[in-house]
């Protein structure tokens, strides 16, 4: 669905190409696709409508700057609008609590959203900042809710307070605050039971808890997989309880997380943190730009660019480019490329940031990483001469056998890597000349997502030029670094499927 989506989006936006101006009429097709992309990302329909209207009025008649085509301009606008709507810099947690006058944070949300887990994650986050937090278990309904919080508190070494399941939640919360004041805690995190926003009795209880603890912060915890419900959920909690921020959980999966837009748009409250795993450490600050790319299905382009710019020397890229064009890219270049990649972080982290690749699952990544290790081992068994002249290997089976036994692989495996490598060289050569037939085995990203060049600081995506074609990996094609982006490979195969 993802690929299809980006592809369709791309096609629609392309209709803007060659126009000298974005007009009411020529922008409609592209807006339709934005609408669709947002709905597929589970942004709530009323929010989608308002958003599309905003983009329309902003886009129509907007000056097209020299060097940026209207389609690029359009994507840039959509992205900017998303980022602006979701809020600028990431918002910190209310602080300032002192021993005796603690900051109080109240957690709220639907059943199973991740409140208890988020309570513990925040507890750890505060502890790491040198604060003294108390966790309060005020969920008396869900079986073993308090034991769950106690276990998590034990894991992070933060005290947990509760009065069992026979006390009223508001009484537990109030007693927790009293204890914190007396015993010098500077922050109190109150975990509450999951509740539906249409359950009036439970919502009234939430209001009683709020009145009992007078929180500095009410965090709505929302599962990033949530559907259209997000807007109504946020509205109800905001109107009835009053929220100051949100935590979006389970973003380690492949949900597009459109809820982020709905939450912000409906409540005006910022998303403060995201949950990225079941473990207590898996909490991160929210970045609107990354979320915007994720919602649009563009991958974490900006982060990638940031990293790429930082880590890769432009001179290297130019040299590599040259080699690609001349098909003189050899195994030593390959090793160098791999080092670059490693400097930029894990392969997994990197791939997930590439548009169209973020749906790659850990399995494929693992396979890819293993494949890389294998190739690395083989290269390790090559002489310098062989590295620089892969043709030597092609013509002399004895060399191949030596490498096989030296690297602990079968001769067939070595043969395969070599063939792939040769193929890749040929392809890369063609690619950098502009034509890119089929790209078998490259299975990469949609090479040129239109408008990517339009993002601030995205120039030619430095560093990406050298990345294409790690044999055996079906690696992303990258942007090819060439001025004219390559056609996206329509058929994407996974890793290791050459």
């Amino acid at each position: 669905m993802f690929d299809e989506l980006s592809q369709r989006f791309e096609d629609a936006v392309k209709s803007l190409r060659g126009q000298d101006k974005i007009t009411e009429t020529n922008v409609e097709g592209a807006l339709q696709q934005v609408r669709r992309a947002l709905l597929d990302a589970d942004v709530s329909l009323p929010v989608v409508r308002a958003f599309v209207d905003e983009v329309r009025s902003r886009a129509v008649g907007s000056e097209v700057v020299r060097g940026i085509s209207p389609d690029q301009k359009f994507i840039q606008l959509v992205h900017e609008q998303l980022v602006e709507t979701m809020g600028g810099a990431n918002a910190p947690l209310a602080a300032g609590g002192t021993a005796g006058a603690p900051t109080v944070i109240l957690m709220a949300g639907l059943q199973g959203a991740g409140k208890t887990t988020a309570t513990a994650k925040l507890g750890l986050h505060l502890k790491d900042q040198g604060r003294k937090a108390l966790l309060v278990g005020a969920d008396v309904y869900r079986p073993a809710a308090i034991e769950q919080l106690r276990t998590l508190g034990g894991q992070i070494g933060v005290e947990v307070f509760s009065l069992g399941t026979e006390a009223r939640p508001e009484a537990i919360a109030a007693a927790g605050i009293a204890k914190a004041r007396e015993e010098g805690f500077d922050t109190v995190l109150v975990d509450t039971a999951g509740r539906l926003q249409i359950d009036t009795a439970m919502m009234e209880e939430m209001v009683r808890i709020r009145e009992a603890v007078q929180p500095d912060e009410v965090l709505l915890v929302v599962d990033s997989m949530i559907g259209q419900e997000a807007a109504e959920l946020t509205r109800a909690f905001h109107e009835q309880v009053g929220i100051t921020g949100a935590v979006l959980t389970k973003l380690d999966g492949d949900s597009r997380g459109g809820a982020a837009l709905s939450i912000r748009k409906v409540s005006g409250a910022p998303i403060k943190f995201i949950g990225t795993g079941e473990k207590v450490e898996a909490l991160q600050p929210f970045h609107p730009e990354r979320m915007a790319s994720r919602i649009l299905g563009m991958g974490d382009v900006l982060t990638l660019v940031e990293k790429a710019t930082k880590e890769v020397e432009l001179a290297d890229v130019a040299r590599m480019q040259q080699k690609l064009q001349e098909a003189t890219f050899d195994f030593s270049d390959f090793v160098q490329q791999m080092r670059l990649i490693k400097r930029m972080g894990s392969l997994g982290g990197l791939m997930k940031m590439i548009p169209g690749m973020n749906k790659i699952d850990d399995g494929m990544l693992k396979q890819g990483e293993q494949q890389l290790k294998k190739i690395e081992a083989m290269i390790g068994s090559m002489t310098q001469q062989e590295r620089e002249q892969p043709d030597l290997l092609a013509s002399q089976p004895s060399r191949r056998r030596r490498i096989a036994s030296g690297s602990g692989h079968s001769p067939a495996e070595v043969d395969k890597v070599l063939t792939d490598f040769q193929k890749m060289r040929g392809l890369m050569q063609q690619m950098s000349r502009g034509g890119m037939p089929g790209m078998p085995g490259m299975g990469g990203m949609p090479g040129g997502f239109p408008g990517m060049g339009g993002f601030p600081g995205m120039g030619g995506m430095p560093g990406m030029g050298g990345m294409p074609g790690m044999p055996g990996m079906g690696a992303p094609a990258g942007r090819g670094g060439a001025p004219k982006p390559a056609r996206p490979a329509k058929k994407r195969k996974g890793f290791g499927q050459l």
Partner: protein
Amino acid sequence: MLEQAAAQRRQRQQELIAIAELADTGSAPAPSETSTSTSTSVSGSGSGSPAAAPAQPSPLADAAEPSLGAFDDTFTWSAEVLAAQGRQLDDISLEEIDWLGRLRRGLEKTRRGFVTQLLDRLGDDPLTPEVLDDFETTLLRADVGVQATDQVLEALRQRLNEEVVDPAEGIRFLKEQLRGLLDEPITASGVPLLAPERERLNVWLMVGVNGVGKTTTLGKLANLAVRSGYSCLIAAADTFRAAAVQQVQIWGDRSGVAVIANPSANADPAAVVYDAIGAAQSKGTELVLVDTAGRLQTKHNLMEELAKVRRIIDKLAPDAAVESLLVLDASQGQNGLRQAMAFAKAAGLTGVVLTKLDGSARGGVAIAVAHEAGLPIRFIGAGEGIRDLRPFNSFEFVEALLAV
């Protein structure tokens, strides 16, 4: 399961008639406290609703038998829904009406907003593109998804090209389309209503992403099984999440079902399943319910772990009737389809349970899941109470989805 339920229903109806007769004297019928042994054990195990807070909502209060509410329009609506299924009022239990009422409560807002209003506005005029837009809105807001929505609306458009259709007929046609998509895999399975087979080992595996309601659903199924006279055992194979074993233990206690667990932290879930199947085989247990840890479908190693559990089951109990049920949260959106695809692969899914339908979310993604993954929806969950589980019925589901 059915006979048992029917017998219970009859008994309940007699009680209600008695109450109704009493009510003739003028006092409103008090909710009867006829707690079965099941609901006694429920209140005993920590619903904890304190006496000090009478307004305290206790989800577990649902564990009690449904009581006769006012003869309100929820009641009539529910009765209508059931009657439209071609069923006589006599074979409709209060439990069912209560259930539907709860389903409908979540729909209150939009229900009024949509179709009735639409019909008022349009009367008998032919369907216009604007009306189609309204249909589209309803479907999209119910999380049906762009693709499935396009598909059913396209069918309707084609129909409109052939003949003049009024709005009422348009809605009827739409419902028929949606039901078709949901019923297809059920028909294909050859099992219209899923129940454990008697005198044979049945293993039901509950799988799904984090927090969707696997453990709760399992607790409800255990209770249903006990009420229906099956011997039952729970395998606590979520060895990862904090207090997961305690949670499932409480659910087991509520219905008096034994729980097989491994006390050591992070024990191998496959080992727990191994123990449970062994115990079931030696005791001749009919139903083993396996609780598994929540996992996102993108986590390769966790999906592998699940596949291993599934293989162990097939290996240890080759003659057992195995159901591998994906628990899907109705409040979730389009990710549900990806979940279905990935879990189908790792766990050999045979069906779906749709939970949290008591909320205002409609669970429209179930349509895509049924259609594209070809999975029958088997049960729906509509509450946190032990009885808030019910066999899936496409008629009810679609009525609730469009909420006419």
